[in-house]
């Protein structure tokens, strides 16, 4: 029974990673940049909900909506101010700028909220699920996290494949120049990608903080890195890939924490990543690109 509960927790953590990884992966696919600030957008999303629910007494659902709006505006602003001027510059320059933005967000949060850990109030108030006469209890947060992630994943896949804006995103990520010639607003599409990625980050932030109720200005950075690993794991740029990568990563992390060693769990997660990449260098669902001379 304990295996099942570890597994459920792993899938729930993995779903959070998957949500973050979706943002990473979409932005990477379209702007060819590693947005290191993504993890910190999660943290900001968490703080917004914290302030809304704990300090102002707003209804949790409304707080989550506000948080999504704030993060969307934040994501688009970051893109406009810090990344857009660097379009066409070396990818490394964009990477370092993203790191600068990440420092900036962490320090703004540090100044406003202080470095002490905030106890996040769980926004999911549903009863826990009890199976096999109470031998296996799965918390409602776990279930809500998994369900929300699956719904978002399906929604996003439909959006990208069926709507005009989504098709434009695919086109821009394939070939920016050709997309522009076809009359696609490239800058607008990139901004839209950042907006979607950031609002997903807000949802991920709320779910992460509900499952692990401690919030500091550095809360987002390690899940951010892990989600990035998950995105690479599943094949960066692919939506189902990010989802599979996230779930696998969460499950491996939780199971190795439970059965092997809690100290070495990160080492195990990263070792699995390395093995996967050595066998399949573009990730599980990544596309192989033939190199031309």
């Amino acid at each position, binding site marked *: 029974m304990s295996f099942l509960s570890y597994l459920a927790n792993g899938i729930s953590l993995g779903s959070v990673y998957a949500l973050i990884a979706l943002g990473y992966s979409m932005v990477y696919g379209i702007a060819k940049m590693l947005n290191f600030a993504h993890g910190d957008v999660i943290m900001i999303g968490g703080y917004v909900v914290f302030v809304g629910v704990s300090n102002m007494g707003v209804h949790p659902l409304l707080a989550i909506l506000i948080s999504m709006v704030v993060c969307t505006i934040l994501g688009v602003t970051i893109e406009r101010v810090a990344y857009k001027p660097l379009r066409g510059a070396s990818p*490394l320059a964009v990477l370092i700028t993203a790191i600068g933005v990440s420092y900036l967000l962490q320090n703004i949060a540090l100044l406003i909220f202080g470095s002490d850990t905030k106890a996040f109030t769980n926004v999911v108030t549903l009863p826990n699920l009890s199976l096999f006469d109470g031998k296996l209890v799965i918390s409602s947060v776990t279930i809500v996290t998994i369900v929300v992630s699956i719904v978002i994943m399906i929604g996003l896949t439909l959006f990208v494949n069926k709507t005009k804006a989504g098709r434009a995103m695919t086109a821009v990520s394939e070939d920016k120049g050709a997309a522009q010639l076809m009359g696609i607003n490239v800058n607008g599409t990139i901004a839209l990608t950042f907006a979607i990625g950031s609002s997903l980050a807000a949802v991920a932030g709320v779910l992460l903080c509900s499952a692990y109720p401690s919030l500091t200005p550095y809360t987002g950075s390690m899940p951010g890195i892990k989600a990035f690993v998950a995105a690479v794991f599943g094949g960066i740029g692919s939506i189902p890939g990010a989802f599979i990568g996230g779930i696998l990563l969460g499950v491996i992390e939780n199971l190795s924490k439970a059965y092997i060693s809690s100290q070495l769990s990160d080492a195990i997660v990263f*070792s699995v990543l390395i093995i996967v990449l050595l066998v399949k260098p573009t990730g599980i669902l990544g596309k192989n690109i033939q190199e031309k001379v």
Partner: protein
Amino acid sequence: MKKLRKETKNNLITYGIVILTYIIVQILVATGNMSSLMQGLLVPFCTYVIVAISLNLTVGVLGELSLGHAGFMCVGAFSSALFSLAVKDSFTVAPLRFLCAILIGALSAALIGFLVGIPVLRLRGDYLAIVTLAFGEIIKNIINAIYLGIDGNGIHISLKDAMSLGLSEDGRMLIKGAQGITGTPHDSNFTIGVVLVLVTLFIVLNFMDSRSGRAVMSIRDNRIAAESVGIDVTRYKLIAFTISAALAGVAGVLYAHNLSTLNAQPKNFGYNMSILILVFVVLGGIGSMRGSMIAAVLLTLLPEVLRFMADYRMLIYAIVLIVMMLFNWSPDAINMRKRLMAKIFPKKSQKEEA
């Protein structure tokens, strides 16, 4: 006097800057014009300069993005600190002991670099970056979990806790898991640091000018073309990566012997540190050793200079970083700078265009 080559002249200027800085600092210290805070920063400066140069060898010369350099630093730091601590009582000639520590740190970092390099260098671009990041985290994670002690029966290692070592009464704990190593002899100082910086520069600059270095740079510029003229891509990549890891290990040795307590935290050996080193390299100019040195010193100095702003200093640091990147790299800013230069020095820019 024979006319020097342009590269040689350039390299001599770089060495000159280091020596000149050293002399100025020594004068400042002797005349009492340097605060104790700044004096405490001198060895970290050397550490960061060395590791920045070493990463620049990977990023600038080899053209691959490594996000795991703090891991190699960590290996160098821990292996050498372990050695120094173990022989502290029996080997009392400090300079000689430190020399051995440096060799041990460099060799163990080189070994790990070589082992990591074999699989990692098969990958390319961002995938390589993420795998080096993963390796860096694995190294940090494992070192955090190691317990190592020594007694009459030999060396005991455990990955669980101190009790499982089973040390006898006279045994000594050397590595205490997450608490790391305490009591490393304080063998490093600014002079040794500067000597190490010069040695690092000498190794890297000469490597760039050697046959292997040129082979490595040709791989960076066009891998397929390099391969087609018979350059063994994997071999030369490994050479450069191993040298780079060894030098990062040397920086780790310097770091370890400047502190009495050494533990692997995210702050000093995690990916944050690797990223910070990358910031030095990119801001200083990819491929320019002199630039890396200057950027490493300036960016280490910046938070200290901004100390009067208390809580706002890291915020300012972040803003400065973003603004500098935008100013240096944005295509618009580059055009604006060019136009501005053309206005101020009309003749020079005309010549450049022609």
